[in-house]
């Protein structure tokens, strides 16, 4: 039966599931080149890659969480909260220590520690208290969002002027013309891919996501691995914030709005299964690039009414996933 279908449609030997996101990305790049000569300019490429870095770094962590059968809706709010706390404490430290590098390092340490703690709280409540990940992180999403609004007194938290100038290069400058966020994103993506493919942790994530019971019988420390995925995601949120704060030097209640959904969408576009059991980090990177390229392309043209930006994004997300699912069913 299967062979019959195969000969009838003469399916190409390349597995579309694997290359679908890449094809979508290349198509978008092609459209961009045709629409605007500035699309491939160094400045535009740098802009798009650098702005992808925040969600990209978070999405790498999200890949592990989803692969292990979990979900985290709180990351956007968490990023806003971590950013708010980081700015507040850096402002306070500037007062007591005076502006300087130590304040920046302290700020970075606070961001990473807060991210880790927030991820740990999510993870421990999901694994030990046995609360459904969707509901628990929906709850923490609201909590972090309110906390940052409260910290900012409803307004905007801004980094002091001297510190902003000193910290700015972390977003705007880099090595050999490549901005720091891009470098960090690339390094983390490579590390993530290696971890997913070639370490016991990565394989355990996939095993848990695909069948928790079997994984447990195979002596995988299910709870601990699952907890680790949330902690890892929390730390990555911290890293993303370290890259985000120097850009505008501020955080408010609107910081990181809908980042969780963009990160999840990027992960799924990249070919990771939403129900868990299979994940790939490079796909996630492609997914993130697809999402930010759509926004970039829409801004570079008058092709579509700005009212319809969201619709275009939705169509591309669905198309990218449909391409994979079609072949997936025949697999």
């Amino acid at each position, binding site marked *: 039966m299967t062979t019959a279908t195969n000969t009838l449609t003469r399916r190409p030997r390349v597995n579309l599931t694997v290359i679908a996101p890449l094809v979508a990305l290349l198509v978008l790049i092609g459209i961009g080149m045709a629409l*605007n000569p*500035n*699309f491939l*300019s160094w*400045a*535009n490429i740098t*802009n798009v890659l650098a*702005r992808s870095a925040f969600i990209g770094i978070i999405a790498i962590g999200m890949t592990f969480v989803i692969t292990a059968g979990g979900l985290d809706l709180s990351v956007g709010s968490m990023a806003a909260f971590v950013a708010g706390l980081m700015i507040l404490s850096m402002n306070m430290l500037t007062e007591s220590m005076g502006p300087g590098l130590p304040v920046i390092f302290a700020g970075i340490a606070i961001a990473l520690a807060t991210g880790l703690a927030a991820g740990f709280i999510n993870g421990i409540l999901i694994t030990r208290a046995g609360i459904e990940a969707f509901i628990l992180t929906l709850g923490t999403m609201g909590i972090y969002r309110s906390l940052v*609004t409260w910290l*900012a*007194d*409803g*307004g*905007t938290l*801004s980094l002091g002027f001297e510190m902003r100038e000193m910290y700015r290069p972390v977003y*705007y400058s880099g090595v050999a013309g490549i901005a720091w966020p891009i470098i960090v994103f690339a390094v983390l993506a490579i590390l993530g891919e290696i971890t997913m493919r070639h370490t016991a942790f990565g394989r355990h994530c996939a095993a848990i996501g695909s069948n928790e019971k079997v994984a447990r019988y195979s002596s995988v420390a299910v709870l601990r691995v699952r907890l680790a995925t949330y902690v890892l995601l929390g730390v990555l949120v911290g890293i993303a914030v370290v890259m985000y704060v120097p*850009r*505008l030097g*501020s955080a*408010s*209640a*609107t*910081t990181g*709005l809908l980042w969780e959904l963009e990160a999840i969408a990027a992960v799924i576009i990249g070919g990771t299964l939403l129900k868990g059991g299979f994940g790939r980090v490079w796909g996630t990177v492609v997914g993130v690039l697809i999402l930010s390229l759509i*926004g*970039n392309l829409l*801004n*570079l043209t*008058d092709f579509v009414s*700005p*009212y319809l*930006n969201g619709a275009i994004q939705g169509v591309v997300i669905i198309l990218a996933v449909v391409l994979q699912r079609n072949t997936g069913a025949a697999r």
Partner: protein
Amino acid sequence: MKTTLIATTALLSLTAFPALSQTVGISIPAATHGWAGALNFHADRTVTRLQEANPDMTFVLTTTSDPGQQVSDLEDMVATRNIDALVVLPFESEPLTGPIQRIAESGVWVTVVDRGLSQEGIENLYVAGDNDSFGRTAGQYFADTLEDGAKVVVMRGIASTVDNERVAGFEAALEGSGIEVLAMDHGNWNRDTAFNLMQDWLARFPEIDAVWAADDDMAVGALAAIDQAGRTEDMFVVGGAGMKEMVQRIQNNDPTVPVNVTYPPAMISTAIEMTVLGLTSGAPLSGEFIIASELITPENAADYYFEDSPY
């Protein structure tokens, strides 16, 4: 029978002698962006002040993040807090019109702030900024300072009536000036969105002479992107609503930020104060109170700088 009678007399006396303890409900959007943050700040401050001045009065302040929740909040206020007056900044006009109309019909004094209801004659008092003049004032400045053939880009807010009125005013002021609007898109009153949008416009257009960011949060994002591209000298940015950082730059004669247009979030204070004044004094206060948008220039900037405001 007897109890009902007493209750009715009590109710009657309440309306007849306004000095007795009364409840004022205030429902405003949550602090989801800088301007709304300042709105919350001013509402909070005014309630504290009025509470001290009128210890008998009760104030119920709720903040909401979507129209649905606001409807529930209003229902709760009427059902459980028995409010005598309502000050409301509708999250959206359409969905809130019905619920507010029912409250007004039940005899509660209704003050609507800033966002008008989709049906006229419901509210007793309407306090609002002037969106048309907000756009027109900025547009007029563009028409006055820019030359024929100058190229500008426009950042709009969240798609809404407020935004449409502002843009219409802006476009009307530009008419006949020969200024070319290169592009118009929604920055959603958000710094990050505005930053990305401006980056892309800078990549797309080799020449931009001015940016109308229509809100200071967006202006902050746009300015950062322009700075990054090293094109600060080429253009100026006009925001709006009078964020204190912007006012300060105007005061310092920053050529990139020459002017700003006000849209005072403190209008919520105007609305609450007027409502309470009406309740306590019985002075006639129904009608409309429109607060004009003014141009902040280096000369008058000092009058618009508020040190302790969060915005």
